[in-house]
Each structure stands twice: as structure tokens, then as C-alpha cells.
């Protein structure tokens, strides 16, 4: 091991990152171009919307329900004594809508949807099914990438809406059942700091999360090499990077949209 090995590692990593960015750019550009081929991606859109969105609603609702319960209990624990209890509603509503609804749903779907897409397309790549499509002059990007990304872009906000409603509802039920609060009290807190923009902010974040989760799944599936092991690596990378990117995007949107 020479003294230049670390330097070589840095250079190798840099080249790989730049190469990956370039490949992602090419894939994104191809997906944009493939939007024209509606006849290719159109029939596949609804099944992907079901797979990405409708099928993800139960896990999103499950996560949101327990998040709402925990938020209500922790808020009441924190506010006991000094802050009026109706602030539980404000904290539950604001936190679910602005942060936990989109982010937790995005993280959950990055594991479920992103991993699914990366594994599916990666398997097609290593089994040369994508090459077969190309040999038939069938645009694989239009057939595989565009419907999934569009499904993620559209259905992630829908799933997040359901998650937000479930989170607030579970917080409300928890407040009624466990915190000796009344519905008017909870609703008063819920309305206290509510802004319509909060929902818009959440939907924008959810759409961006859907885009990044499905896009990264497609990318790591398309660039998958090395057989079954390679599919596993691509799937793992897809989930890890998508989760990281969700958090980065979360900060980005907060810094961009919430700084008045």
C-alpha cells in the first residue's frame, strides 16, 4: 500500500460521484424526453400509482397514527403546569402538517417504494431485460422510469395527505381519551397557528420526496451491475441515499419556503 493510495481513493470516489451525477443527469434528461412517448408510459402509469401510492397508504397511516399519539402525549407532558393544554392541538397539528407527516411518510416510502423500484429495475438490468427492450427499440426509460417517477410525484402528496389526517385524528382521539381534553379545546389549539400555506408546504415537500425516492430507485436499478449481489447493493444504496436526500430536501424547503 503506497502513500498515494488514499489520494487515489479520493480521486476514485470523486470520479464515481461525478460519473453517477452524470449518469443521473442523462437518465433525467432521457425521462424528460420520454414524456413525449405517452403511448409507452401511459398504460403503465395507473398500475404504478397503485403500487406507489394506494398500496403505501396503510403503512403511511400506521406510522402517522402512532406519531399523532406520541406527539399528543409528549406535548401534554411538556406543557403540564404552565402552558394551557389546548396547545397540544397546536403542536400536534403544526408538527404533523409541517414536518412529521411528509418526512416520516417519505422515509417509510423510500424503504418500501424506492427499494421496490431499485430491486425491480435492477433485476431487469442484471437479467438483461432492459437490454432486450432496447434491442426491440422500446424506450426503457419511457417504459420503466417515467410512469414510476410520475406516480411518485403524484401519489406521494396524496399519501401524505392521508397521513396528516390520520396523525391529527389520532392526536385528537388521544387528547380526548387520555389527556382529559375536549374537542373544542383541541380544535382551538389546532386552529391557533394554522396557515393554509402549511398544507401547501407539506404537499410541495411530499411531491419532491416522491420525485427523489422514485427517481433514485430507477437510477440505482438502471445502473445496477453484478448480478443478485449488485441488485442488493443497489437496493440498499437507493434506500440510504433517498433517505438522506429526503432530509436534505426537508432542510432545503424549510430554508427556501419558511424564511419570510
Amino acid at each position, binding site marked *: 500500500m503506497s502513500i498515494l493510495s488514499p489520494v487515489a481513493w479520493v480521486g476514485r470516489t470523486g470520479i464515481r460521484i461525478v460519473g453517477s451525477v452524470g449518469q443521473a443527469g442523462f437518465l433525467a434528461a432521457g425521462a424528460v424526453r420520454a414524456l413525449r412517448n405517452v403511448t409507452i408510459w401511459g398504460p403503465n402509469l395507473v398500475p404504478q400509482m397503485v403500487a406507489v401510492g394506494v398500496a403505501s397508504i396503510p403503512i403511511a397511516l400506521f406510522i402517522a397514527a402512532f406519531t399523532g399519539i406520541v406527539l399528543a402525549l409528549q406535548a401534554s407532558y411538556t406543557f403540564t403546569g404552565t402552558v394551557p393544554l389546548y396547545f397540544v392541538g397546536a403542536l400536534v397539528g403544526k408538527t404533523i402538517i409541517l414536518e412529521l407527516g411528509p418526512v416520516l411518510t417519505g422515509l417509510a416510502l423510500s424503504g418500501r417504494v424506492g427499494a421496490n423500484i431499485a430491486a425491480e429495475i435492477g433485476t431487469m438490468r442484471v437479467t438483461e431485460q432492459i437490454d432486450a427492450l432496447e434491442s426491440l427499440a422500446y424506450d426503457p426509460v419511457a417504459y420503466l422510469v417515467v410512469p414510476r417517477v410520475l406516480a411518485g410525484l403524484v401519489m406521494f402528496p*396524496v399519501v401524505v395527505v392521508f397521513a396528516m389526517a390520520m396523525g391529527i385524528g389520532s392526536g385528537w382521539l388521544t387528547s380526548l381519551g387520555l389527556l382529559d381534553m375536549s374537542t373544542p379545546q383541541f380544535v382551538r389549539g*389546532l386552529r391557533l397557528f394554522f396557515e393554509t400555506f402549511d*398544507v401547501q408546504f407539506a404537499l410541495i415537500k411530499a411531491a419532491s420526496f416522491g420525485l427523489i425516492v422514485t427517481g433514485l430507485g430507477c437510477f440505482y436499478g438502471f445502473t445496477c451491475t453484478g448480478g443478485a449481489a449488485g441488485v442488493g447493493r443497489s437496493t440498499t444504496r437507493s434506500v440510504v441515499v433517498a433517505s438522506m436526500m429526503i432530509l436534505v430536501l426537508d432542510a432545503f424547503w424549510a430554508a427556501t419556503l419558511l424564511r419570510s
Partner: protein
Amino acid sequence: MKRSREVLVGTVMLIGMIVVVIGSLWLAGSGLGRPSYPLEVLVADVGQLREGNQVKFRGVPIGRVDRFMVEPSGNGIRIHVLLDQEVPDISDAAAVVAPESLFGEWQVELVSRDRFPRFEYYTLSPGQASQDEPPLLPGFTLPDITRLTAAANEISQNLAVLTDRVDRAFNDETAENVRRAIDNVQDVSENLRTLVSSTRETFDDLRGDVSQATEDIGAAASVARAALERTNDLLETGQVDSIVTNVAEASKDLAVIARAVGSSSGEMQSAIMRMDSTFTRIDRMTARIESGEGVLGQLLSQGELLGQASSVLVQLDLLLADLRANPGRYVRLSIF
């Protein structure tokens, strides 16, 4: 199968959109189709009031703040509120913008001015309350908690400075001086009490004297009045002139007499002295005569002579008595 998937996706998306729209409207406090009654409030500033905050009447939420509009003049803010019911009939109505609690919530409360008469409500010009616009109320915004905190901070700083000054000024020496001053004040008050007591006695006496003097003055005034009346009579009858003239002449005569008496008194004194010496000699002579010496003595010792001598002596006694009684008859005095 394909159809059912489409229906499923469409249903989920529609439900999601409905949840978003209705949920947002509900959380924002929209009436969701219920009638609303607009009302406007003019205030100098809105403090921490935000869109969606409650409008209350006697503590009951009856509406929400809809939007804010800056007056074209820049002198105030027009708050547009939407009420769930018609504007309550309040005599001399006004609005108070105030914190609802200590946690940042503000509200607009519709009140009668009589409830808070000292608030400086926004003054509406006659044109501002036109009939075409929604009902317009003058408003007053209570100071924000931050302003109160700033004012309290300033007061506390001033108190700190004041306390520091008092601390510096009120040392042991000052305390001793204050103690002495208190003692002095006590002495002064005691003296004042004594003075007031004595003064009161003096005033009592003086009051008696004044009363007596008043009575005397009254009597004197009566006398003076009578004298003046008499004087007036005298003046009117012309007697005064003659009296004055007579008095002047009498005073002149008295002056002359005084001078004459003064000059004659010296001569009288010398004459009396001479008379004393004369009487002395006469006594001596009488003694010799009684002893029978000399002629007269023999006369006395002899009866006939004595008789004659006795008559002579009687005559002499008469003479002396006359001389004492009327010295001018025997002694001529000449002044000039």
C-alpha cells in the same frame, strides 16, 4: 382489472384532494358556505393580531379576522372581520384589539365605549363611516407584551439607579443627620406648641384689652361727638374767637406777672432777712427791758412808766402786725 385500478387510484386521489381542501378551509376557520357578516375596525396598529384570530363579543367567539388593509393616508389599519352572525346592537360600539392570553394569541373584542372610557379609540372622520361600506367601528389596540416588558425594563432600570443613589446618599452619617433633624423637628414642634399656647393666652388678654379699648373708644367717641357738637355750636356762635382773644391777653398778663413776681421775690427775700435781724434785735432789747435794764426796763419796772410803755408796746405790736400783713405799705419796692 385495469378499470378497477383506475377507479381505485381516482378514488384515492379525490379523497386526498377533498381532505386537503376541506381540512384547510376548516382549520382556517372558513364558514364553509355559511353566511358571514362583514365588519371593519379602524385602529392605529394591530399589534400581534393575525388573520384568523377570533372576534368576540362578551367573551363569545362570533367571528374571525379576515384581512388587513393599510389606510391610504398611512395613519391607521383597517381590519376586515367576518362575523358568524349579524353585528350586535351595541350602544356607542367600539373594538378593542388585545392579547387573548399570554401565549401570543390576540383577539378583537366588540365593546361599548362605556366599558373602557379611557382608551384612545381611533377617531373616525364623518366620511369614513359612510353607509356604503360595512359597519365601521373605531378601535384601540392594547400594547404588546413586548412593549410592556420594555417599559417595565425601563422602570426597573430607573428604580435601580434610584436605589443606587439612595444607597449612596443614605449612609451612617446621613442617618445620624436625619436622626438629628428629627430631634430638631421635635424640639421645634415642642417650641411651637409652647409658643402657640402662650400666644393664645396673649391673644386672649389682648382680646379683652381690645374689647375694653373698644368700649373706651366708643365712650370717647360719644364724648368727642358731644364735644364736636359743642365746638360746632361755639364755632357757629363766634364765642371761640372772643375766648381765644381773652386767653391770649390773659396769657400775656400772666407772663408779665410772672416776670414781676420773679424780680420782686428776690427783693422780698432780702427784706425779710432784714426784718429777721430787726426782730432779733427787738427781742434782745425786749429782754433787756424786761430785766429792768435801760430806760425801758425801768419803765416796766416802774408802774407808771410801765403803763405808758405797755401802751407803746401794744401800738408797736400793732405796727409789726401791720408791717407783716402789708409790707408794701412800709417797704417800697421798685422794679423799674
